[in-house]
């Protein structure tokens, strides 16, 4: 009995306390998902949502796609680098932006599967954001496992890769457990007690807040976008120092197979594919080009150019801003174009 009491007091009680506080306050919306359904209901009705930056975007987009009234004409599969791409570029056609932060090819498969399940046909046009890091082996995003069954079902349908190569959902469940008992999260929870930012339904666009728009796009607060140029350059440099995603020198075969399988499937289903290579801030690209550990980024661009040519795909974008009529002022950090610049770039290039 003494042993059990001790184990309870020393090990279990602190865990119960930490877990309860974290779950109850959940300042980053990372433990509870009950906020997603009301958000989706409002967004599907065409309302705007303002609120915290952190949201489980994979579950949100999943539910959102499931509740879309129609299969959109244009679908965007991409990362935060295309999250700002909006309906205004494609006026007159139905549009849905299924981009999620740190998107992987598996996410794209999952969303495609959900869209395909909705209607008989796939969208007419699909924009695929081919982030350079997706072709390396350093990018280890596993949040796609939230929608694992949808992704795996589609990959199985495409039939390119043995399923045993994919991790189980337990890998993402573990992250949830870690967050539940995280002391860092406890600190944040205690600090945010009573001050947790809520999602709110808005009638008009609120530039100072993170906004979810009914077309699936997302806008970040203006203070981030309109930061001083010096600060943005600093961010671009910091991105290079902090991110390890670009640390690859050769293209990863597995990733290329995933990508090629996706494109071939869309091609076979007569979708028009627009391949977008998102550019880097000139300062970030300079550092990437200088380092011999990130040469894979340049190889990815060449690979995509050859691939697009081989399969006769429309290719826009590229690593360098020079050739795209863009410059440092079009970015708000090392990898993200300002929403206005992104939409302008798409508009001008698609019109051409």
């Amino acid at each position, binding site marked *: 009995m*003494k*042993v059990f009491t001790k184990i309870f*007091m*020393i*090990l279990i009680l*602190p865990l119960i306390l*930490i877990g309860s506080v974290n779950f109850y306050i959940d300042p980053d919306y990372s433990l509870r998902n009950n906020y997603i359904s009301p958000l989706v209901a409002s967004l599907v009705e065409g309302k705007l949502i303002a609120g915290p930056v952190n949201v489980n975007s994979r579950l949100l987009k999943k539910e959102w796609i499931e509740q879309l009234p129609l299969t959109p004409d244009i679908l965007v599969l991409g990362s935060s680098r295309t999250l700002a791409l909006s309906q205004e570029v494609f006026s007159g056609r139905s549009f849905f932006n299924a981009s999620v932060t740190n998107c992987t090819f598996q996410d794209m498969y999952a969303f495609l599967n959900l869209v395909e399940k909705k209607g008989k046909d796939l969208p007419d046009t699909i924009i695929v954001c081919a982030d350079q890091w997706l072709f390396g082996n350093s990018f280890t995003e596993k949040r796609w496992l939230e929608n694992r069954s949808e992704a795996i079902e589609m990959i199985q349908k495409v039939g390119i890769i043995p399923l045993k190569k994919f991790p189980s959902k337990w890998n993402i469940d*573990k992250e949830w*457990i*870690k967050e539940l*008992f*995280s*002391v*860092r999260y406890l600190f944040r929870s205690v600090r945010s007690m009573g001050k947790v930012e809520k999602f709110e339904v808005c009638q008009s666009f609120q530039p100072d807040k993170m906004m979810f728009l009914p077309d699936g796009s997302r806008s970040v607060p203006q203070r981030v976008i309109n930061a001083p140029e010096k600060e943005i350059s600093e961010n671009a440099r910091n991105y290079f*120092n902090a991110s390890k995603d670009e*640390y690859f020198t050769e293209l990863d075969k597995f990733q290329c197979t995933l990508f090629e399988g996706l494109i071939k499937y869309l091609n076979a289903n007569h979708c028009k594919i627009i391949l977008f290579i998102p550019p880097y801030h000139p300062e970030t690209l300079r550092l990437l080009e200088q380092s011999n*550990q990130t040469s894979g980024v340049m190889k990815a661009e060449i690979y995509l150019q050859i691939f697009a040519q081989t399969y006769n795909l429309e290719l826009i974008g590229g690593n360098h801003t020079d050739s795209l009529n863009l410059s440092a002022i079009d970015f708000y950090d090392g990898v993200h174009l300002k929403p206005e610049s992104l939409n302008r770039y798409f508009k001008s290039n698609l019109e051409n």
Partner: protein
Amino acid sequence: MLFNSIEFVLFFPIVLILYWGIFNRVSLNFRNLFLLSASYLFYGWWDYRFLGLIVLSSTGDFLFGKYIFQAKTQQLRRLLLIISLCINLSVLFFFKYYGFFATQLTDLFQQMGYTVHQTTLKIILPVGISFYTFQSLSYTIDIYRRHLEPTKDPVAFFAFISFFPQLVAGPIERAKHLLPQFNSLKKFDYSRASNGFRQLLWGFFTKIAVADSIAPITDSIFANYETLGAGTLVLGAVFFSIQIFGDFAGYSNIAIGTASILGFDLMRNFNMPYFSRNIREFWFRWHISLSTWFRDYVYIPLGGNRCSKTRNSINIMATFLISGLWHGPNWTFIVWGLMHGMLYLVTNPFSTKYSSDKLSLKQWPSITGTFFLVCAAFVFFRADNIHQALSFFGRIFSFKGGGDLLELTTITKIVPALFFSIVLFVVEWNQSEKKHGMDIANFQPVIRHSIYYLLIFVILFSFQTDRIFIYFQF
């Protein structure tokens, strides 16, 4: 399965309950069979296909041990031992060194003007292969030397080879010490289990709070060394030395603590190595299970010190060379081993034999000097290749300015890493008479429990990712 993973946090309590609640009460065979199954589950969680290697190694050495013991002539005994060594070392060589030697030979032939097409095989290195192979080897060698009688119980032997607390990263146990512990049922000893729990907690602290906090900083410094100033690079070398100690000593403490809670006694693997006063002493304190293995099975058979000074020096260098190679198929490890051999030989004539002498702060010049020598050697250990290590030193000794640490990381990452490192050193120093940093059974209960809570808090604070233990790759 990693110790610092959710899987282990779930696995170990279940094993404990079944072990003490059922299997250790039923019979010895059931208990050992249970430990064997748990160990195979622990290992197979990483990749079940490589369980075959452990089974092969265990079966081979169990049979060879028996045959060596039964052999009538010395010649036959020797032959059987050689076959056993060849099988074990061939497997180790194939999985660990084939790629390295094939590349070196291809390069050599190409430099001589021959065109050689290297047959490249994609070989995955089975986790912990060097550890269990060495443990298994010691069994047959000890039987050959008549230091040990072979066991008749295959289940006990298989459980000894695959005992999960020390299967993948040691301590490398000797059959003489660990195998007999599988021959009797255990009695639950509260104080022993408590001490094991404390050691486990201390291991998690050194691994998760110290090593894992420092790791991203070290990674950044080594990845960007070409642009950094001399001071930052020295800091990088020091940080890596603390990281590898935290990582490996942490693993060892978790292993010993885990085994202790199960009623088993594993040998001490680290004894405050960074407080060593010379290189000789360092090797008495660092990775003790491996250094004593090399002493007993390589250095002494080579002639040890019962020979001429020149021969003795060759023996020492050869032992360090093999020790370096044991760590991995890379020239960096070989140079690291040779560097230690050289340092050992150069400093040994001036080194005092401190084995029974108590540590004192007055000895700080020799402690600091030894620490920096060890840090310098670890640059080779950490570098991707010799060129990188030499460039690293080149930048340090050119005293060039350059970027500082704050360009690579944030103060919020540096402060906890530094703070936890200092805590580690202070505690280790204060507990120098004890078996581990958390050997605090004699503390007042209130203080003891406060320390438990604090440690758990710090561990959960630092627990971010499944950073793999560095020594798994060996």
